[in-house]
Structure formats: structure tokens, C-alpha cells
């Protein structure tokens, strides 16, 4: 059922698909990493938007506020963002090394160079 009220989930799905598509269809290694990042960002949005409580304040302790949004997803996503950063950093380091060693960062050219090896 098309519940457009839950538009956050629609956005998440759209971003996820964009991200995955980019990873699969693009041959340039950096673009793959970008796609991976988009995919991961979609997941972050999934978690955070899930934690939102209607008519509640952001989860920062403020005197006089009774209702807070759920802080746990924020915490989880902080961890996941760090993981994502580490992954991207590692991925980019690999891309740099690949560029140095092979001279290219296009997947099909790499494939060819590897097979001729």
C-alpha cells in the first residue's frame, strides 16, 4: 500500500537503490566508492528517521522538556558513520595504490591488465 505519509522510507529506498546501482554499474573505482557512500548514507537516514517521535524534542537534555526523540539510533549511526569513514578512507587508499601500480582506475581496464598478467 502506497502510504506516502511514510515518505522517509521512500527516500531511504530511493537513495539505497541509487547507491547500489552506482556501485554496480560504474566502472571507475572512485565512483564505486561514492555509490557505496550513498548506500550507507541511506541506511543512516533509515535509522535516524526511525527514531523520530512526533511532537518530540531532539534528544538533548533540556530542562522542562518531557518528550525526547529516541537517542539510541543517533548513537548507533555515529558508530556506523565512523565505520563508513574508515571504509571510505581505506577504499580511497587502495584506489591511490591501484592507480600507482596499474596506471588506471577503470574496472574494465584493470580486468584486462590482470588477465594479460
Amino acid at each position, binding site marked *: 500500500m502506497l502510504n506516502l505519509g511514510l515518505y522517509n522510507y521512500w527516500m531511504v529506498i530511493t537513495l539505497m537503490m541509487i547507491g*547500489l546501482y552506482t*556501485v554496480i554499474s560504474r566502472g571507475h*573505482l572512485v565512483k*564505486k566508492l561514492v555509490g*557505496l557512500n550513498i*548506500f*550507507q548514507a541511506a*541506511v543512516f537516514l*533509515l*535509522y535516524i528517521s*526511525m527514531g523520530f517521535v512526533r511532537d518530540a524534542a531532539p534528544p538533548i537534555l533540556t530542562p522542562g522538556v518531557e518528550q525526547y526523540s529516541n537517542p*539510541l*539510533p543517533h548513537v*548507533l549511526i555515529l*558508530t*556506523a558513520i565512523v*565505520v563508513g569513514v*574508515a*571504509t571510505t578512507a*581505506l*577504499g580511497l587508499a*587502495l*584506489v591511490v*595504490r*591501484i592507480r600507482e*601500480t*596499474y596506471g588506471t582506475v577503470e574496472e574494465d581496464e*584493470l580486468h584486462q591488465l*590482470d588477465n594479460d*598478467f
Partner: protein
Amino acid sequence: MEHLQVLLVVVPLLAAPVCALLPGRRLPWLFAMVVAWVVFAMAVALALQVRASGVLSYALGGWAAPWGIEYRLDAANALVQLMVAAIAAVVLPYAGRSVAREIDPARQGGFYSALLLLIAGLLGITATGDAFNVFVFLEISSLSSYTLIAMGRDRRALTAAFRYLIMGTIGATFYLIGVGLLYAMTGTLNMADLAERLPAVADTRTVHTAVAFIVVGLCLKIALFPLHLWLPNAYAYAPSAVTALIAATSTKVAVYVLIRFVYTVLGADFAFGELSLAAVLIGLAVLGMLTASAVAVTQPDAKRMLAYSSVAQVGYMVLGLSLASVAGLTATLLHMMNHAVMKGALFMALGCVAYRLGGTAVADLRGLGRSMPWTMAAFVAGGLSLIGVPLTVGFISKWYLVLAALEQGRWILVAAIVASSLLAVAYIWRIVEAAYFQGPGRADVKEAPWSLLVPTWLLVLANFWLGIDTRATVGLATQAAQALLGAAP
């Protein structure tokens, strides 16, 4: 020692950056080796405690479960922890000379640091009782594996590591999505608590989707056919010590997570009854066993051949756990341990060959039976175990697996198991023929050095020992299987 459960993870985690700062070539290795042995001692102590008193629980930071992160140790993960720690303790002495030859000296500190992080990550996965914590440690171990693999000599190690990175991250992120959806439905991340709360919401599409994401994500890490494409290159081009360690541990730890998730969190009835996970997993496992073994026969490089063999062996493990019986689960847990011993020995033997020859192409192995007798004898012993010759651990695993399949009257599965064993004969025997019966010994090649042979032979002897005296392994596996299937945590 009430903090032992968490120390097991914290010690290697803290040791890693220290290792990166150590100067020189030998010091990082020695330090890492000592840490690995300390960790092994801790794992043994924990396993004995679990044997005696059942489930051990530890609340991180004093925050009680289910709001805090709980480290929960029962027979199943004690077994896996022990396996990881034991393999690490054996591979690290081996790594000294092997790594010194294969990796740039300036990078040794970083290498051992990453190795310790890998061990910390794997142990963390097995130690924790919190679903999100599993993700964190999964990524820690994965990131360190990408680094370690990329350090291989061959330039294809870089592309292999990159591909592994992409696929592994997608897998881990799938797992994350699944856990998130489960959290949305139940409000908890603690696995024991999830098990209690899930039945109430189990029939929703959300939970079904969550399960699908988690299973697919884990299957990517497990390298279950057809999500195994990252494995052959990653194993083939990584440094020898790294291949030996990850081949023996990473996929098994991922299988453990799947078992924990399916049996503890979901419960066997739900997973196999309502969701019919069994059909999918069994089908893919059988396909994996047969196609991977068949491809292994055609490989010109011995390391790659064993990598495909690992994909097939993982199929055995998934097959066992999909049978949803105590016998099947025992077979899987047993095979996890036995395969670690088998593949560890095989890859270490190949590492000895690579140390002397610089490569592991089957064509280069001609006559090596004469020049490197101990190394090739180790390989033959591991190979016999892989085939399932009696008196080796491989036979014991096969016995339990066939018995489990026969208990349920599934003759097709028996046929599949037998067929892939026969294919194993084909690919192992190529090496045996090349080494012993195809050409004279190579005069320029000497036997591998002691520090490489001793750890290799340690695992080879374990192969035979644990194939004859199976009380410890079978006992642990059966206890774990009964706990997983019988009682809720």
C-alpha cells in the same frame, strides 16, 4: 577474573596501536605473537568456565542488559572463540619469516597491528550478545582483512582487496539494515531480548524483510554461493600467513553469526518453519559444494584451488545448519573447528612452498616431494583430511554430516556430499601427482625453515589427533548444538 570475557577483546584491540608504534622488524612480530598466546590462554580459560558453569554473562560498563551491551558466552561461541584464538596462536609464530619475506620491511609494524585488529574483531564478534555490536566488530575485522590482503606481493592483491571491500561493505550494510528494521519492530538490540520480543511481531513484512537482509548480508561474508566471488582472489593474492589465518577463521565466524541469528534470535521453528529458509540455504549450499569443487579441479594455481575448496567447505557448514536438527548443527560446529585445522595446515604448507619458490602454481610443484619432503607431506596429510580419509578430522566431519542427512532421509544431500568429496580427491591428487610422481627433485630448492614447518606440523598433527580422540571437539559441538536447539538463551 570476572572481566575475562571483555579482556579477551580489549587486549588485542589495545595492543594493535602499540604494535604499530614499535620499531624494527622483529619487535612487532614478537609482540603480536605474545599477545596472541595470551589471548589463547584466556580463550581456553573461558571455554573451561563455560564447560563448567554454562552461560557466562558480562555487562559492559556495568550497564545491565538489555539496555547496555551484554557479552554472552555459551558453548557455541566459546567453541568459536577457542578456534580463532588457537589458529591465531599457531599462525603468528609462522608469520615471522613468511611475512618478512613477502612484505616490505617498513610496513611490518602496520601489518602486525592490522593482524591484531583482525583478531580483536573476530573475537569481538564471537564474544558479544548484542546485534549491533556484531556489526561493529564485523567491520573492524573486515577492514583489517582488506588491509592485510592488500599487502600481498602480487599487484592483483590490490584489486582483490578492493573488490572484497565493496562486496564486504555491502554485506555488512545489509546486515545493518536488517538489524535496524528489527530494532524498529522490537525496540531492542540485545539478542536474547530480541528472541523474546520477536514472536509477537514475527508475522509482519518488516520482520521478514529484516531477516532477508540479515541473511543475505551474512551470506556475503560467509561466501555462500553465489555471493562468493570475492573469495578466490582475496585468498589467492594475500600474503601466505594472512590467507592461512582468514581461511581458517573469518568465514567460520560469519557462519557462527548466522547460526546465532537463526537459532537464538529467530528460533528454529520460525526460521525453518514459517520462513522456509532451509530450502534456500540447502539449495545454495549444495550448488556451492558442487560447483566450487568442480572449478577447483581446473585451477592452475594451488592457492586459488584451495580457495575454491573453502567455498565448497562453507557449503557443507551451511548445509548442516539448515537441517535444523541437533545432528546437523553438531556437524556444522564440528566442521567449523575441523576445517580451521585442515585449511590452516594446507595454507601454511603452501606458504612454505611460496617461501622457497615465490609462487604456488601447480606446474612449479613438480618434484617438490623430494626437495621439500616435510612440506609436501604436510600438504598430503591436510589433503587426505579434506578428502575425508578415516583417522583425520575431515572424516569425522563428513561422518556426522552424512549421519545428520541420513537421519532426515535426505539421500540427495548424501549424494551431494559424496560427490564433492570425490571432486576433492581429484583436485588434491593433482598436487600429489605433481609433487611425487612427475619429475625429479629440484636441486635448487631446500626444505622450508623450522619456524615455518613447526606451526604447520602442529596443525597437521592436530588433524590426526582430533580425528582419533574426538571427545573434546565432539563434546563441545554437541553441547553447543543442544543448547542452541533445546533451550532459549
